[in-house]
């Protein structure tokens, strides 16, 4: 392929070959692990190490044809992120350039460095018209072992900030170190294909760990945790809301709603707020009327201060028949929620007036010359749970994981 240059390791004296002479800047001694500068005619020792030779699945110098191109392995790195280690190889072909197979947990990915950078933000990027979504948390990668040659100054202990963006089985890997950002397209390749290309035995596994670029993202996927946290939080809040709402007291009465006038000051009953603050709900249930509505004005009067807290309820029901058939609307029941009621004794009063539709005039009761009066059952109750608060909380809790799910689905379409 390219010119091969023989050098000796200044540290251990081992005989080494520079296979991409003229391209390579660094060489990791396969005998002692020392890092050499091979960019100039005279080899310089950059960092001396004395360790046993590290074996890699693809030893530097081996050749194989992958995706129709013959490659020579010129370098190998073992990197770790604190949770595990994986191997990265540098392949070289003088007519094509470099490629990066990555072996992790027996799975392989084939990496090609991108010359055109993806555009986007921290959550997603677009490359050549395709959107890639950011995978979950990835810790920094540290270079543990260096063997072979590289086109940049490589050293043990090099750290890079890694992030990965996925689209289906493909991913874009972003690495940032020393202010330099590199993007690599990683596509899965069968282990059998790599093993066949480089003449490996089937039982020669790479380092066992979760795949950095595919499975690792799933391993640290925070979406299930988000759903779990949201569910647990909702259950806890519901339980505490129920506990904070009580105790329950009721007062009920049937009030009269005449047509044409308001019957005022109808006593519903007395309730006692025993907690520092409590909700009170007032339910109204109209009788079996049709094409009528009843306005109900509530007054919740604090016996201690005489202060009245007012509210409004409406029961109504209409029906008829038109060219589309029969129709009906309205509800004969209604609920009015009172909040921020401090501890104390309260008298509940209601003013009620009935109306007729479509003509709001007092209908006459048959056989009597008195206006019709509608009965409405009203019940006041302490210890209510503000369900609107709970559903709003649930919506806000689930919004984030649902949004993440939606973005993933959209990006994979």
């Amino acid at each position, binding site marked *: 392929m390219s010119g091969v240059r023989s050098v000796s390791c200044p540290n251990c004296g081992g005989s080494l070959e520079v296979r991409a002479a003229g391209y390579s800047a660094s060489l990791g001694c396969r005998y002692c692990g020392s890092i050499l500068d091979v960019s100039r005619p005279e080899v310089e020792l950059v960092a001396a190490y004395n360790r046993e030779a590290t074996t890699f699945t693809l030893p530097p110098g081996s050749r194989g044809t992958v995706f129709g191109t013959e490659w020579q392995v010129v370098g190998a790195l073992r990197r770790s992120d604190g949770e595990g280690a994986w191997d990265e190889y540098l392949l070289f072909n003088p007519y094509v350039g470099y490629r990066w197979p990555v072996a992790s947990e027996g799975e392989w990915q084939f990496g090609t460095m991108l010359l055109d950078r993806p555009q986007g933000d921290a959550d997603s990027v677009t490359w050549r018209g395709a959107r890639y979504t950011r995978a979950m948390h990835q810790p920094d990668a540290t270079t543990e072992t260096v063997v072979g040659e590289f086109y940049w100054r490589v050293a043990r202990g090099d750290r890079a900030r890694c992030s990965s963006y996925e689209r289906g089985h493909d991913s874009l890997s972003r690495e940032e170190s020393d202010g330099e950002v590199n993007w690599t397209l990683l596509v899965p390749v069968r282990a059998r294909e790599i093993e066949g290309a480089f003449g490996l035995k089937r039982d020669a596994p790479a380092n066992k760990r979760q795949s950095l670029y595919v499975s690792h993202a799933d391993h640290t996927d925070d979406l299930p945790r988000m759903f779990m946290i949201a569910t647990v939080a909702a259950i806890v*809040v519901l339980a505490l809301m129920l506990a904070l709402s009580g105790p329950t007291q009721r007062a009920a009465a049937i009030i009269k709603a005449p047509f044409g006038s308001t019957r005022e000051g109808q006593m519903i009953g007395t309730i006692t707020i025993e907690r520092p603050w409590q909700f009170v709900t007032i339910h109204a249930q109209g009788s079996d009327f049709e*094409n009528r509505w009843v*306005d109900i004005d509530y007054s919740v009067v604090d016996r201690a201060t005489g202060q009245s807290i007012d509210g409004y309820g409406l029961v109504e029901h*209409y029906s008829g028949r038109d060219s589309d058939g029969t*129709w009906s609307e309205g509800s004969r029941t209604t609920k009015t929620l009172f909040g921020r009621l401090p501890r104390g004794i309260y008298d509940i009063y209601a003013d009620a007036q009935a109306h007729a*539709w479509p003509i709001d005039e007092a209908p006459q009761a048959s056989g009597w010359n008195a206006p019709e009066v509608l009965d409405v059952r009203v019940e006041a109750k302490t210890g209510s749970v*503000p369900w609107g*608060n709970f559903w709003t909380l649930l919506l806000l809790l689930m919004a984030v994981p649902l949004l993440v799910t939606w973005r993933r689905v959209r990006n994979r379409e």
Partner: protein
Amino acid sequence: MSWRLIVFILWTVLLVSGALTASYYAWSPFSDEARGSHAFYGGSTHK
């Protein structure tokens, strides 16, 4: 633990605190006690 998860946990803590505080003080944005009386047009809206 990702930053996104940390932010979500903080968001959850904020919501839970707010919900429990609202429950203790019996406050709800959906309560009806401030509604003015007789501010309603009665009758069917059917056309």
